[in-house]
C-alpha cells in the first residue's frame, strides 16, 4: 500500500498539534505501508520561511519530500484579509485570496500532488485550512483522506469550505464535536467519516519522584502542559488559580510546562518550568494531582488524553465544546465556565482523593478503548480501505452517482 501524507510543515523539531499528529500517524503507518510525506521547506507558521532544504530526506524511517514556499506570509496583509473574510459582504474570491495569504503558498507542492496522483493509493491531508490542503485535495478529491483538525474559530464557516468538506473520499475527525461542527456547515453526511483522534508516544515508565527532585518541587500541584499563551486561556487560568488560593487558603501550586509567550505572574504559587522534554512531561503528569486545560479552542487535546493515560483527572475549560464533550464521554474530568465553577471543581478534586482516583481510572479506560495505537491504526485502515475501494475502477460508476459528489460539483 502506498500512502502520501500532505501537511503544511513536517520535522522532528516542528511544534504544533496537527503537525505532530501527522508525524505520529505517518511513522506508525510506515511500519506496514510505503509512506511518503509531501510538505514544504517551512518550519514555522508565522512566516513560512524556507528553512529545510528542498528535496527528499528520511526522518524516523519516513521518506519526506519538501517543496519551497514561493512567498512568505506577510502578517499585516494576512491580518487585513482575515478581517475582510470575517466580515459579511465579502465573496469567494476574497476567501481564496485570504487562503493564499495564509499559505503556505507552495504551488510546486500542489502541482506535484496533481501530477503524481497515480503514484499513491491514498493521499492523507492534514489541516483543512491551509493553501496546500485546499488546493492539493481539490486536485484529487475522492483519492483523499482528510484529517481536518478543525477548531470552532469561525474559519470553517467560510463559503469555500462547505463544498470542500464534501470532496474527500473519507474524513478522520478528531472528536464528535468536530464532526458535528463540519457537518453543520457543509452537510457532508454522505462522506464516510470516523472519529479517530491520535495516540501518543507513550513512555516505558514515569517517575514522579525524579520530576520533583529535578525541579526542586515538593507538595501537591496542578499541572498545565502546553504553550503559555493568551490564546490557550492561560491569562484566565492565572487569575482563577491565584484567586482560588486566596479564597480557599489552598496550598496547591500551579506548575507550567511549556514555552511562555505571555508574562507569568511573579507569585510563588505559580512555577514556570519552560519547555520540558517528553520524559519530563510524563514524570510531571505522574507527580501532579490534576491536569488543567484552560484552552477555549481545541480540535483534540493530546495532553488531556495523555493525562488520562497517566490516570490523572482533568479540569478543563467548559467553554471549549470539544474538551467538555471529552470530559463527559470519558467521565474523567470536570469543567468550568466561570470562576465559581473553577473554584468548586478544583476544591472538590483537591480534597477528594477517591474521586481523583476514580476519574483517573475512568480516563485510562477511555484512552485504552479509543486512543490506544491499535485502535487508531484500525480506524485508519478502515478509512483507507473505504477510500481505496471508492477509487477502484469497478466502483467508479457508483461513485459518480454519490449524492455528496453531486453537491460538491454543484
Amino acid at each position, binding site marked *: 500500500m502506498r500512502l502520501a501524507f500532505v501537511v503544511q510543515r513536517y520535522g522532528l523539531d516542528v511544534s504544533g498539534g496537527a503537525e505532530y499528529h501527522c508525524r505520529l500517524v505517518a511513522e506508525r503507518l510506515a511500519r506496514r505501508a510505503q509512506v511518503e510525506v509531501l510538505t514544504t521547506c517551512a518550519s514555522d507558521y508565522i512566516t513560512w520561511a524556507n528553512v529545510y532544504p528542498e528535496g527528499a530526506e528520511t526522518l524516523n524511517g519516513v521518506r519526506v519530500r519538501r517543496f519551497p514556499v514561493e512567498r512568505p506570509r506577510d502578517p499585516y496583509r494576512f491580518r487585513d484579509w482575515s478581517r475582510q473574510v470575517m466580515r459579511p459582504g465579502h465573496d469567494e474570491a476574497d476567501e481564496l485570496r485570504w487562503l493564499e495569504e495564509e499559505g503556505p503558498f507552495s504551488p510546486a507542492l500542489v502541482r506535484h500532488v496533481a501530477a503524481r496522483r497515480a503514484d499513491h493509493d491514498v493521499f492523507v491531508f492534514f489541516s483543512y485550512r491551509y493553501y496546500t490542503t485546499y488546493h492539493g485535495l481539490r486536485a484529487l478529491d475522492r483519492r483523499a483522506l482528510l484529517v481536518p483538525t478543525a477548531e470552532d474559530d469561525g474559519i470553517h464557516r467560510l463559503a469555500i469550505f462547505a463544498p470542500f468538506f464534501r470532496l474527500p473520499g473519507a474524513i478522520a475527525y478528531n472528536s464528535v464535536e468536530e464532526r458535528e461542527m463540519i457537518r453543520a456547515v457543509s452537510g457532508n453526511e454522505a462522506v464516510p467519516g470516523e472519529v479517530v483522534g491520535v*495516540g501518543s508516544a*507513550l*513512555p*516505558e*515508565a*514515569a*517517575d*514522579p519522584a525524579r520530576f520533583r527532585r529535578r525541579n526542586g518541587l515538593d507538595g501537591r500541584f496542578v499541572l498545565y502542559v502546553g504553550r503559555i499563551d493568551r490564546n490557550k486561556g492561560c491569562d484566565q487560568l492565572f487569575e482563577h488559580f491565584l484567586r482560588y488560593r*486566596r*479564597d*480557599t*487558603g*489552598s496550598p496547591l501550586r500551579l506548575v507550567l510546562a511549556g514555552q511562555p509567550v505571555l508574562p507569568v505572574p511573579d507569585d510563588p504559587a505559580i512555577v514556570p518550568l519552560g519547555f520540558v522534554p517528553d520524559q519530563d512531561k*510524563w514524570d510531571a*503528569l*505522574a*507527580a501532579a*494531582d490534576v491536569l488543567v486545560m484552560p484552552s477555549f479552542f481545541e480540535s483534540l487535546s493530546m495532553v488531556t488524553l495523555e493525562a488520562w*493515560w*497517566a*490516570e*490523572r483527572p482533568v479540569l478543563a475549560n467548559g467553554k471549549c465544546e470539544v474538551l467538555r464533550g471529552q*470530559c*463527559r464521554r470519558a*467521565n*474523567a*474530568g*470536570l*469543567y468550568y465556565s*466561570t*470562576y*465559581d*465553577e473553577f*473554584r*468548586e*471543581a478544583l*476544591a*472538590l478534586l483537591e*480534597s*477528594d*482523593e*477517591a*474521586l*481523583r*482516583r*476514580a*476519574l*483517573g*481510572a*475512568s480516563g485510562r*479506560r477511555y*484512552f*485504552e478503548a479509543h486512543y*490506544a*495505537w*491499535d485502535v487508531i491504526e484500525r480506524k485508519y485502515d478502515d478509512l483507507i480501505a473505504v477510500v481505496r475501494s471508492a477509487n477502484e475502477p469497478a466502483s467508479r460508476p457508483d461513485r459518480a452517482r454519490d449524492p455528496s459528489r453531486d453537491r460538491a460539483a454543484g
Partner: protein
Amino acid sequence: MTFEIRAEGVDVEEIMRSIRKRIEEKKQGLYTDEEVREIAEHRLDAVLDAHEFNSDFISDFRAEPARWNFGFEPETIYRSSRGAVGRALRAVRGLLSPVQKLFWNPNPMISALSRQSDLNSYFVHLLHNLAVEITRLNLEVQDLKNRNLQLQGRLEMQARREKTLESMVVYREGAAPPGPGPGGSGPGGSAAG
C-alpha cells in the same frame, strides 16, 4: 459535597450538576461576581443611575451656584438687567413701591423665595452626602458578604480535609491495604500501544 464513587466509575455530569446547584445555593440573594466588580470599578455611578445622579454635581454646584440655584434678596424684584436704562427703571420702581404695596404685599413672597434658595443649597448637600454614605455602606455590605462566603468555603475545605485525615487514620490502624492510588502503580505500569 460528597459523591458516591461506584466501582464502575463516576458520573461527571452528575458531579457538575451538584457543583452548579451548590453555587446557586451560595449565591442566593447576592450580587454576581460581575456585578460586584462593576460596583467596585464605578462606585457611585454604578449604584445610582448616572442619568439621575451625577457624582460630580456637588463640586459643580459649589463652583457655580448661580447656574444651579437662584439667589433671592429683598431688592431682587426691583432690579433690571438693562444697564443705564435699567438703573433708571430700578429708581422709578423704588419710587413707586409704596404705591404697589397698596395693591399687594411682596414681603412674604420675598421671604419665602429667599428661604427656598437657602433650602435648595442645603438639600443638595444633604442628598449628596446621603448618596455617598449609602454607596459606601453598600460596598461594605458586599465586602462582608464576600468575606462570609470565603470563610464558609474555608470552613468546608477544612471539614473535608479533616474527614480525609480521619479516613487515613482508620486505614493505618486497619489491616486491609488500599487499592492502587494515583501514584500507586505509576502511569508507566501498563503502557498501551
